[in-house]
């Protein structure tokens, strides 16, 4: 689960990794916004953006293969929406421009998440005056996401090893039971977490 979703290179110590998270966050957002704002088919602009990103990627010393793999995983989503834009006048131009633009933006976000750990990003968000309740919620979500996904996979495995059926409805039912049971466990866990937070002196 962790291997599938998290970049293993967030902990290395290159020049890019050591930048303050707020700088990286704002930089990434500025890059994405300016890329999106570029008019269609300004190929020189796209090229400059790509060069800048590749420089940053080289400085960060994250293996290129890893970045390419992350991009490849995400690209189909972009492609499937972009394909819809072919069905209109001058569709090919729009299609190519959109494809390049969103690939650049994806690359930028992949770089950000490969060089900045989530707790750092959250502290960046906090110093940007994002409401505390939202940041707390995000932090809790991140903290318990992996645990819950692992728990869900365990429950599904247990369920699969006990029920053998090819009936479609039964499969749906057992999926729903797993989700429901996960929510029961989640709400019980939330109570325990609250007690633990209070015991450690947490205040809103």
């Amino acid at each position, binding site marked *: 689960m962790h291997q599938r979703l998290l970049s293993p290179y967030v902990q290395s110590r290159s020049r890019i990794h050591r930048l303050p998270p707020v700088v990286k966050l704002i930089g990434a957002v500025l890059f994405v916004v300016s890329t999106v704002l570029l008019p269609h088919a300004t190929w020189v602009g796209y090229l400059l953006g790509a060069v800048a990103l590749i420089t940053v990627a080289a400085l960060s010393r994250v293996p290129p293969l890893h970045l390419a793999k992350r991009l490849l995983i995400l690209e189909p989503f972009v492609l499937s929406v972009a394909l819809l834009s072919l069905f209109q*006048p001058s569709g090919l131009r729009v299609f190519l421009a959109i494809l390049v633009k969103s690939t650049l933006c994806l690359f930028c976000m992949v770089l950000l998440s490969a060089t900045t750990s989530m707790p750092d990003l959250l502290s960046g968000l906090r110093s940007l005056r994002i409401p505390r309740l939202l940041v707390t919620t995000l932090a809790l*979500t991140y903290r318990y996401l992996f645990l*819950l996904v692992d728990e869900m996979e365990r429950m599904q495995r247990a369920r699969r090893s006990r029920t053998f059926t090819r009936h479609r409805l039964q499969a749906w039912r057992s999926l729903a039971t797993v989700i429901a049971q996960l929510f029961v466990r989640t*709400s019980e866990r939330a109570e325990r977490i609250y007690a633990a937070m209070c015991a450690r002196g947490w205040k809103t």
Partner: protein
Amino acid sequence: MHIPDGFLDTKTAVASGVIATAGLGIALRSVRRTLPEKRIPLIGLTSAFVFAAQMLNFPVAGGTSGHLIGAVLAAVLLGPSAAVLVLSSVLILQCLLFADGGVTALGANIVNMAIIAPGVGYGVYRLVRGMAGNGQRGILFATAFAAWCSTVAASLACAGQLASSGTVAWRVAFPAMVNIHMLIGAGEALITTLVIAALCRARPELLLSESQPLLKPRYGELTAYGLLVSLGLAIFVAPFACGWPDGLEKVATVLRFESRAVVKPLLPSPLPDYAVPGVNSAVLSTVLAGCLGTLAAFALAYLLARFLTPRVEIHPGPRPRGSPSGASTPA
């Protein structure tokens, strides 16, 4: 339904950003005001739960698979404001951590999946529950129909945003998004209802206790969400409905006029399509098909609820925590 970066133009991104900020602001304010402090971890954990549940794929016809949005699930379990907060934080995390959904499209994604989906879903849920009563069958019926409506409404808004940005023509975006999501919505409805039914069996007190402050939103809050949802749909979808006759004509011309005034330099022009003869009947048939689909979903939701309700209704009431029937019920 996550829109990546680069698919929205400036005006759409800004407009949806404003709506998203307003909605999130209202949700944060009302959660902070009504939520007892001890439930704050529950909000965070529920969004982790929704995130996890979104990773489970369910099979749709023809080898494709869809996954839950979970908007109605969250809204039924925790109330509308908490649902808005929960889904927003799921989307923000997906954007920052996994680059799933764009940064500039974050506003649009929040509008679709974290405001319109739970807003429409909760509205429909309350309405149907008002009609069908408070028993378990009423809850399941309302949940099923609300889940379907929320998915379709979210996909409608998504199609509208893509079309008004000029990236995808409305005549392609509409069938590609909405028709498919009518099917996916059926899957979402089935799973959500099965989950709620399983919770009714395992832990009815999690669901049926209406005394929780979160589940009783104030009218001001509901009105605010209603306004935001209709504003979003009006901005993104109504300009394309200008082929509709009489009643909506006036509003539509005003809206079309407005959007044209802003859009002209940015758009490659999706609008000339509307001069094509026969569009009127096409629009009419779309509307008719939509109505029929909605009616069918309504009927199916009722049948599903009947099918899932046990003969003896379960009544709200505390139950000892470790009771054997609280364990997962085999299917």
